[in-house]
């Protein structure tokens, strides 16, 4: 059936049609919807794992047991899962195993712009790279065949513009391949030195075999052009930009398999054209391969090593005319993302900012605590880094740091990789104050459940980890719970825990204001007679509060009546429905 489908949904459809049976992932933009869509098929067991390493090992276990499996993650998630990846490359698989990694050139929703193709090369695992939704579906089915034929996990690399673009696909039926019963095989699966030494040459031979496959596969195809003075080698979304900008002007070698790369195919393509131009986003991976096999190409001297491309980027680099749009209107104010009205993080960050504390942050919606006017967060690095960095900060500065420094980490991020940092605080005893922002959901990626919420990927009841009990079990005597809507109590507890002589955990607990089950109060309004225009309510950066005619104004379509602003108004000018 012909359907218009998101790249990630088409990927999930491919998993379904290929008979995948076990899916374990950690959410991460732009990869999340592959797993969310797969979870809509009752035939596939799907789950959110606590992190990407656990997800990959779960998928490996399912493959070992004989079921086709999958794990999905964003580019930085593969850093976390790199450890199992490099050795699953050695063991190979039983039933097929696919890893989705979604890169984010231009950093729409990421902390860096790393190029995942390096992981495929370094781990010696084949990588396919679809260029639209239709290929996302087809490549997924093919990847399982390759995985089983060549005894290897297969990585499918997505990027934001493929993952989050819809295009037309043709769907098919689900075909579950015959089961591959689990068989004990110590030499293949126990990677101690004596066995791994024997597996390594198998991996090297596999790369040679896959290179031979890369020479012949229609995944890597040549499209004829009218003018052979230039030949273009490209893949993924850059292929689309190339065709959009140039049509069939120049011949194109479109690579669907980016590791291992073909050698003879590239050489013979180069012989038919004058100059070879490589068009690839981020790092010069294809370019360096071409140069290594002795082909002279132009790549990064024409194109940036940073950000996303587009049809006009390609057109400009190849000397095509540029298009002109309407005249811009100057000096328009920017519109960055903001914490939502009623966000439970706001009261907490206001308190941290007011007390001029150093705040080591983490990955989540609460990174927005770094944005004006709160400007509360001092550092954000990677998942879990807040707690471990706070420990190091305090070990370096002693009481000078301990008395005015905290870290903040969300519930899902804490489960992902905060627990090990907390174990270090408990073990090596820094007098650290750790704040867990428990909004009872994985917020930034669009509301996924996690081990602390008590619900599984389908929203059905599941195991629930008790954060307080966990912290106590690690040896923390001081575990406080505060409601961040209550500014006075939040401030009192933070001051008390900073002043104490032992490590402590503060759980700032209030569900995300966007969760469906959260009941909102009616919007507040401003008594303009009482409002003295002092702007105290503006200090929290709530999108529902603005200034109109020199008085505070509450947007009643946004306000959820959280009452945090009321606590800042000394003139009782912000009133609820009852006028209180």
């Amino acid at each position: 059936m012909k359907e218009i489908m998101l790249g990630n949904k088409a990927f999930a459809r491919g998993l379904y049609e290929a008979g995948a049976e076990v899916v374990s992932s950690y959410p991460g933009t732009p990869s999340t919807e592959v797993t969310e869509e797969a979870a809509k098929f009752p035939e596939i067991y799907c789950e959110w794992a606590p992190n990407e390493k656990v997800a990959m090992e779960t998928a490996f276990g399912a493959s070992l047991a004989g079921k086709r499996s999958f794990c999905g993650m964003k580019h930085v998630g593969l850093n976390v899962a790199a450890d199992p990846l490099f050795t699953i490359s050695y063991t190979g698989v039983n039933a097929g195993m696919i890893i989705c990694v979604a890169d984010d050139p231009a950093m729409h929703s990421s902390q860096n712009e790393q190029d995942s193709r390096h992981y495929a090369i370094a781990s010696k695992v084949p990588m396919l790279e679809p260029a639209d939704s239709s290929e996302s579906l087809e490549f997924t089915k093919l990847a399982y065949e390759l995985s089983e034929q060549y005894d290897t996990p297969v990585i499918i690399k997505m990027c934001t513009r493929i993952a989050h673009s819809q295009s037309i696909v043709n769907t098919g039926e689900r075909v579950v391949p015959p089961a591959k019963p689990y068989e004990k095989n110590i030499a293949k699966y126990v990677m101690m030195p004596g066995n791994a030494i024997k597996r390594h040459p198998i991996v090297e031979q596999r790369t040679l075999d896959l290179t031979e496959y890369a020479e012949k596969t229609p995944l890597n195809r040549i499209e004829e052009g009218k003018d052979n003075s230039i030949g273009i080698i490209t893949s993924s979304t850059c292929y689309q930009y190339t065709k959009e900008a140039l049509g069939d002007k120049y011949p194109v070698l479109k690579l669907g398999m980016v590791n291992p790369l073909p050698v003879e195919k590239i050489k013979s393509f180069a012989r038919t054209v004058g100059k070879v131009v490589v068009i690839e986003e981020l790092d010069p991976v294809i370019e360096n391969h071409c140069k290594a096999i002795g082909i002279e190409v132009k790549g990064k001297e024409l194109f940036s090593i940073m950000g996303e491309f587009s049809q006009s980027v390609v057109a400009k680099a190849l000397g095509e005319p540029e298009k002109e749009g309407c005249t811009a209107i100057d000096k328009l104010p920017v519109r960055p993302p903001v914490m939502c009205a009623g966000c439970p993080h706001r009261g907490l960050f206001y308190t941290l900012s007011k007390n001029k504390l150093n705040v080591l942050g983490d990955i989540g919606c609460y990174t927005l605590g770094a944005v004006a006017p709160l400007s509360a967060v001092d550092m954000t690095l990677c998942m879990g880094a807040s707690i471990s960095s706070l420990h190091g900060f305090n070990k370096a500065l002693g009481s000078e740091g301990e008395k005015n420094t905290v870290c903040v980490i969300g519930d899902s991020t804490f489960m992902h990789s905060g627990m090990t940092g907390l174990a270090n605080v408990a073990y090596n005893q820094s007098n650290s104050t750790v704040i867990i922002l428990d909004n009872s959901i994985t917020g930034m990626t669009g509301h996924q459940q996690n081990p602390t919420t008590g619900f599984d990927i389908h929203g059905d009841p599941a195991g629930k980890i008790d954060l307080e009990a966990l912290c106590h079990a690690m040896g923390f005597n001081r575990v406080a719970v505060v409601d961040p809507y209550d500014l006075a109590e939040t401030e009192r507890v933070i001051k008390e825990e900073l002043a104490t002589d032992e490590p402590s955990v503060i759980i700032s607990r209030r569900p995300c204001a966007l969760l469906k089950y959260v009941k909102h109060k009616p919007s507040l309004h401003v008594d303009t007679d009482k409002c003295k225009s002092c702007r105290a309510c503006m200090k929290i950066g709530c999108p529902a509060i603005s200034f109109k005619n020199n008085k505070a104004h509450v947007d009643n379509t946004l306000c959820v009546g959280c009452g945090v602003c009321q606590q800042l108004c000394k003139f009782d000018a912000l009133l609820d429905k009852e006028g209180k």
Partner: protein
Amino acid sequence: MNNTTNVMIVGVGGQGSLLASKLLGHVVMAKGYDVKVSEVHGMSQRGGSVVTYVRFGDKVYSPVIDKGEADYIISFEVLEAARYLPFLKKDGRIIVNSQEIDPMPVITGAADYPERLLDKMTELGIEVSAMDALALANEAGSPKAANIALMGRFSKFFDDITEDEWLKSIEACVPPKFLELNKKAFYLGRNS
């Protein structure tokens, strides 16, 4: 590729641009066009400037729209319509909800919301169709249907797509319990 129609749907994160692009994608696919829609996902975009690209024609390659390529900009908010002007073709058209939402720099007092933006766009010679989509949506029953009211207005520019075809696609894209609301919002927009 030369007959491709390029539509940008812009607004503030959380205003419902995903449903608008889904509807447009569906209706043009049903007409037999090739189509690509590029979206913005993730809760962290809430309150920020968001843009969705919809492209349709005989054969569409790129999922994105570049400067000087958009035939239409459908904007959920006035400032956002102005922000993407360089993407609009010189003879392009803007369909804009007349709602103004202050961005954070305006809220904090670091900047002012620009005045007379609709007039300025018209003075630049651009065809601007401004409408109070929020009022129409409220009339239909919920402010959340402002997106579909805007699409109703936009639908008037496509003679080859019938009202019935639009309604069929609304049925395919909207959950049953919100169907009547959205149909009403669509009519109100189309007849505005």
